[in-house]
């Protein structure tokens, strides 16, 4: 009953996101969609994903999108759609949709016959991985390569984002919330967020939680700090920031090659110390990923000053 209702709501909300006439409505619908996704992950027995989705879908993504909307003020019309191409595009979309639907239906009707029973494999080897939580074990022991490269991908995204940052600093023009109530609340909310992030990091070894969820919460804390107009300590030390950005990947690589020295494989943890190594890597990843996600938010230029419209300057009124 709950499942049917939720599963039915999901495409409806998606439809709402796509059909909303006004962009702001689409974005708020999308935030609601993220929250629904968190509930769906709960019902799919994936609390780790629910945690990540709650922090990212309901927290970070919403802020990023609202922030971007505030920036694209005096919206320029995207122009008249290509009327001549529209029927063609619609047909293309319909054909694509139909084909995908057929493929999915086929996949459902013909159940997978996997040659390896993955859950059984995970259960078999989890003893040796050094952690008790299967998802963490997969992330940092069985498929550590994937995780390593994922962090590298995010680092590349941040490098691109930072490279595109505006050279002129109009941070002064940034509109910030100045409310005594907000400041007062943040003085205990932010430490609490940090605490929760560390808690998530710690319990990741035996329960749902871990580096990614902790990093998302920590990044949300940094973003909130920024939104309320506070300066980050060390913000003006680019070297410090960069060290933080690559710190996670560096620690991962460094600890991963420890076994190489003794003739082992890359990213194989020493048997006795596997748990400690994983915790170390996760801690470094948490702080580093939080900084990376925050840097992507920060890389977005501040909204233009009032009366200083974008360079082309021919905004419609």
């Amino acid at each position, binding site marked *: 009953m709950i499942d049917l209702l939720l599963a039915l709501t999901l495409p409806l909300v998606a439809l709402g996101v796509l059909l909303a006439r006004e962009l702001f409505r689409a974005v708020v619908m999308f935030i609601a969609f993220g929250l629904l996704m968190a509930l769906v992950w709960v019902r799919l027995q994936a609390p780790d994903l629910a945690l990540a989705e709650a922090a990212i879908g309901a927290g970070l993504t919403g802020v990023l999108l609202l922030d971007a909307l505030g920036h694209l003020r005096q919206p320029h019309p995207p122009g008249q759609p290509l009327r001549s191409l529209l029927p063609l595009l619609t047909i293309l979309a319909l054909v694509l949709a139909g084909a995908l639907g057929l493929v999915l239906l086929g996949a459902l009707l013909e159940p997978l016959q996997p040659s390896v029973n993955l859950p059984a494999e995970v259960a078999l080897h989890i003893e040796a991985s050094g952690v008790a939580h299967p998802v963490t074990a997969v992330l940092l022991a069985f498929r550590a390569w994937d995780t390593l490269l994922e962090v590298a991908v995010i680092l590349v995204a941040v490098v691109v984002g930072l490279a595109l940052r505006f050279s002129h600093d109009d941070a002064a023009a940034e509109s910030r*919330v100045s*409310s005594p*109530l*907000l400041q007062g*609340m943040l003085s205990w*909310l932010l430490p*609490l967020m940090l605490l929760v992030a560390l808690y998530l990091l710690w319990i990741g070894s035996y329960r749902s939680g871990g580096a990614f969820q902790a990093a998302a919460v920590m990044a949300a804390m940094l973003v909130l700090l920024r939104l309320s107009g506070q300066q980050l300590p060390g913000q003006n030390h680019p070297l410090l920031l960069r060290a933080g950005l690559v710190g996670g990947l560096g620690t991962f690589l460094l600890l991963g090659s420890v076994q190489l020295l003794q003739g082992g494989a890359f990213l194989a943890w020493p048997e006795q110390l596997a748990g400690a190594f994983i915790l170390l890597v996760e801690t470094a990843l948490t702080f580093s990923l939080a900084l990376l996600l925050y840097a992507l938010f920060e890389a977005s230029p501040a909204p233009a000053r009032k009366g200083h419209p974008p360079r082309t300057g021919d905004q419609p009124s």
Partner: protein
Amino acid sequence: MMLIDLLRALLLLSGALFFLVGTLGILRFPDTPSRIHALTKVDNLGLGLIVLGLLPGVEHWPVAIKMILIWLLAIAASALAGHLVVRVCREFRPSNAGEQQDD
């Protein structure tokens, strides 16, 4: 034992009903400030009742503390959201400034 179960059921159901009523309030009230009123009621009471109803069922006391913390967080968040949104409403619709006295 029966009495406790009955009490829990009562708390949970009334909490859920409060959520429903509050959401209806958000749907039916005519202007933004009164909708804020509905919103804060729901957070404070609905969630509070549900947390109270769930408390006897938890196994360890730290879990109970966590749940109460969640409730406090939700209250603080809704109060702050109401405060910020009211300020925004006032700023952009000066004609309504007199309607909302309590912030």
